[in-house]
């Protein structure tokens, strides 16, 4: 048996090797656990490593293969789960002290689907507290460092999910995207990540931040890996009333389908003067390459884009203030040591348990929803949200996929933006509109800055248009080799 080279390995080659008995799932798990043990002290990707559980699962997979049965599409592939997916018997914190010690009695739909397809969860990945943040600096436990430059942020909120894939501390991972929390860290870490159509992937067992915006989705080294993971996790779930019943697309096939007849829209609002010139150059270069590959470029406009950030922060804070009301110290998680009244139990528990960003958003959201102001804030935000969705609907009459930057800048330094939350919020400008509209969007690497930091290309499709997105992403990846670059292992 050949020893598996896991650094930079793709999901397909790892699973094929397990099925062909080229290597054992156990060997894969040991290789990744070894990398985690050696490297994660510098990176901070994992909040919890379930070494014993992963080894046990690997041995089961190997036994299945030895018995001549197929363990599934993801046979023995070690993956990581953002710590927002509840895992039965395994502490789940959503990056918050208020959930420290919470061991869920049930399993999220998507992590269960991954396991059923033969994947092996190595552990729980670091994140901004309750997925609130764009730098992973809001984790209550520790920051994540960008594998391309340890002094820089990996993006957020799924910072651990992106950085762990970039640093080959897992072969693929799951994250969640509420306003950009998959795409922005994918962009900053130089990996691929997709926020599917709202309702395409079940939210059951995904700790809620903003229910109408939370999109679980996959990260991978390549767009094929993302397509593979999405094929496994997508599909109707009777436990999620917002889940879409239509059949799952053939995403892996779409990656190889070519661009014949494709129209790619370039929204003027997303490529404007003032953005980072290196990012602009790389994204324009990628768009040109897509044109050379046979797609027709169409200039388009999404006129309500300028309202997206404000709308997003009204909707997400309102829903967050509601979703986070359950953390009261009564049933699970943190409870204050001493309280002399019920009110004190609540205020001390929540005061001690929540970090600054959740507190800020709970207060904003409570303000947004208070009696008499609903129409002025939340009601108006919902109406603007419809306008933004209408923009996308109109644009997709003229084109099949939109190409834009994912983030206006490459990875910034740890601590650089922490003092200015508004600046941090504005960095979500390219990712929040597709989130509000619920349309699928993928980020993949389209170049590097002179300082060797990855730059992301965002591809946006119409509702349930994941296949169109994968066609463009797959073709662009075939014509580029950015995805083959790997960061050096930290010393």
């Amino acid at each position, binding site marked *: 048996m050949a020893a598996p080279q896991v650094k930079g390995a793709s999901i397909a080659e790892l699973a094929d090797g397990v099925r062909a008995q080229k290597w054992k799932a156990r060997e894969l798990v040991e290789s990744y656990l070894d990398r985690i043990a050696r490297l994660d002290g510098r990176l901070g990707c994992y909040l919890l490593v379930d070494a014993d559980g992963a080894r046990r699962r690997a041995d089961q997979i190997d036994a299945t293969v030895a018995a001549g049965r197929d363990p599934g599409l993801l046979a023995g592939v070690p993956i990581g789960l953002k710590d927002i997916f509840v895992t039965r018997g395994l502490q789940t914190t959503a990056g918050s002290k208020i959930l420290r010690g919470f061991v869920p009695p049930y399993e999220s739909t998507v992590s269960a689907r991954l396991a059923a397809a033969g994947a092996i969860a190595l552990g729980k990945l670091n994140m901004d507290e309750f997925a609130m943040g764009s730098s992973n600096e809001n984790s209550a436990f520790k920051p994540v460092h960008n594998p391309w430059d340890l002094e820089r942020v990996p993006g957020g909120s799924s910072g651990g999910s992106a950085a762990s894939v970039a640093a080959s501390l897992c072969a693929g991972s799951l994250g969640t995207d509420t306003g950009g929390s998959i795409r922005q860290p994918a962009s900053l870490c130089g990996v691929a990540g997709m926020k599917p159509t709202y309702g395409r992937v079940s939210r059951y*067992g995904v700790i809620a931040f903003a229910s109408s915006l939370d999109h679980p989705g996959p990260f991978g080294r390549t767009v094929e890996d993302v397509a593979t993971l999405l094929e496994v996790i997508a599909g109707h779930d009777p436990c999620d*009333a917002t889940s879409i019943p239509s059949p799952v697309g053939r995403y892996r096939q779409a990656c190889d389908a070519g661009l014949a007849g494709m129209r790619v829209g370039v929204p003027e609002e997303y490529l404007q003067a003032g953005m980072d010139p290196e990012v602009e150059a790389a994204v324009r270069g990628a768009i040109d390459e897509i044109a050379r590959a046979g797609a027709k470029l169409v200039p388009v406009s999404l006129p309500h884009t300028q309202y997206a950030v404000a709308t997003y922060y009204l909707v997400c804070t309102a829903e967050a203030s*509601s979703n986070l009301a359950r953390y009261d110290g*009564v049933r699970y998680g943190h409870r204050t040591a001493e309280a002399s009244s019920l009110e004190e139990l609540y205020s001390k528990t929540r005061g001690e348990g929540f970090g600054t960003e959740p507190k800020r958003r709970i207060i904003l959201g409570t303000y947004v929803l*208070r009696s008499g102001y609903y129409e002025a804030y939340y009601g108006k935000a919902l109406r603007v949200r419809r306008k933004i969705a209408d923009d996308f609907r109109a644009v997709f009459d003229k084109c099949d996929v939109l190409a834009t930057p994912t983030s206006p800048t490459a990875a910034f330094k740890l601590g650089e933006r922490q003092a200015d939350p508004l600046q941090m919020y504005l960095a979500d400008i390219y990712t929040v509109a597709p989130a509000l509209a619920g349309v699928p969007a993928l980020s993949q690497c389209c170049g590097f800055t002179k300082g060797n930091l990855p730059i992301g290309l965002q591809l946006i499709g119409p509702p349930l248009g994941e296949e169109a997105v994968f066609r463009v992403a797959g073709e662009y990846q075939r014509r580029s080799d950015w995805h083959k670059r790997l960061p050096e292992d930290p010393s």
Partner: protein
Amino acid sequence: MSVDRYEAVIGLEVHVHLASRSKIFSSSSTAFGEEPNSCTDPVCLGLPGALPVLNRAVVDAAVRLGLAVGSHIRPRCRFARKHYFYPDLPKGFQISQYEEPLCEGGAVEFRVAGESRRVRLTRIHLEDDAGKNIHDDSGVSFVDFNRAGVPLVEIVSEPDIRSAEEAAEYMRALRTLVRMLGISDGNMEEGSLRCDANVSLRLHGAEKLGTKAELKNINSFKHVREAIEHEIRRQAVVLDRGEAVVQETRLWDPERGLSQSMRSKEHAHDYRYFPEPDLPPLAVDQDWIEQARASLPELPESRYRRYTGALGLSAQDAGVLTSEREIADYFDAAASACAAPAKKLANWIINEVLARVADPRALAAADLPVPPVALAELVDLVEKGTLSGKLAKDVFGRMWQEKRRAGEIVVSESVAVVSDAGLIEEICQKVVAACPDEVARFRAGQGKLLGFFVGKVMKEMGGKANPKTANEILQRLLG
């Protein structure tokens, strides 16, 4: 104090548990009285990541209720989150309906002391119940979440109620209705029917409504009456003193028979309602509504009108018969098999059948000792003269005890009335001959002594003489 100067204006918000097997948004059982926290699941416990999924059977029950009271069923309605903090509320919000309830309008019709009343409804909406806090003597509190997620309908009335008694009768009518519809057991001991009352006073003839107080925690007909009567007196005292009633929420304490202020208007909760993002809007199409309509049983008021109209029953008898679905069903089943007047059948049910069951719902039991057709047969035997009233009562007692049919008892034990005029005349002659004194007194004008002779004849014949025949013969012999 002069309560009489004021008119009370009362609106009720009645919460009814819907009888579904599983909870409104999840699959755990709604059984009452189970081991604490044994009927729970991630959804009703509000665990992180859990999501609600609407139980369609619950919607169907609420639609049936809405149709029964003539509500408009909205083709599209929404759920909303209602926020407040309390240990028995696991999510930090209740899933209710706010701007777009399932049912709007409608009315409940009922009677108070024979007079018909109509209370209009504002709305009926669906929501989930909270858990239950349990406090022990040591000052430790526990929460039982078995009730969390049990489906509720909240029935909100217009302020059409004018007295405590009327409020209690309204609530009774709702209870009868939901039981007739089979959508709730309406069991007050188990908290299946609870109510909050909004009460205000105004001078008779005044149009403007007074300031209201909301009374919470009322969970029996008795408490409804007591709590509202108490509140009316309390407000009358305040107004008589020339003071203003404070708008507030008051908690009724049934043990002490008084209410205490919970919170004033200034401290009223801001529930921060917003549409529940985890549940898509609920669409109830015309097919669904028509199916629900077709499945409605005959409702209490319609039955009442039928009983007092075509069947000629008294208001009182009709009231008893329509008080429970099982009684009315029993009566209707018996009536359709019975040739005797409905009034006679009603008497049998009210005086004999109901006296033998602790809970009227037992009348629906398949193994009831005297099913409706058996009672019909007995009443017809009386009507035909085969059995006298007294004999029939004995036979009924044996039917109930031995689960036998009336005809069978009559035939096998020859308990039937003897109508053979020759035989009766023979006995009558014997009795007349044996009682010369009484005969003389009867002939001297003491007519009421006829009863004495009939009694004697009955005694001689073991109570089986046809009383009508015996009467006629005796009158002829003594005349």
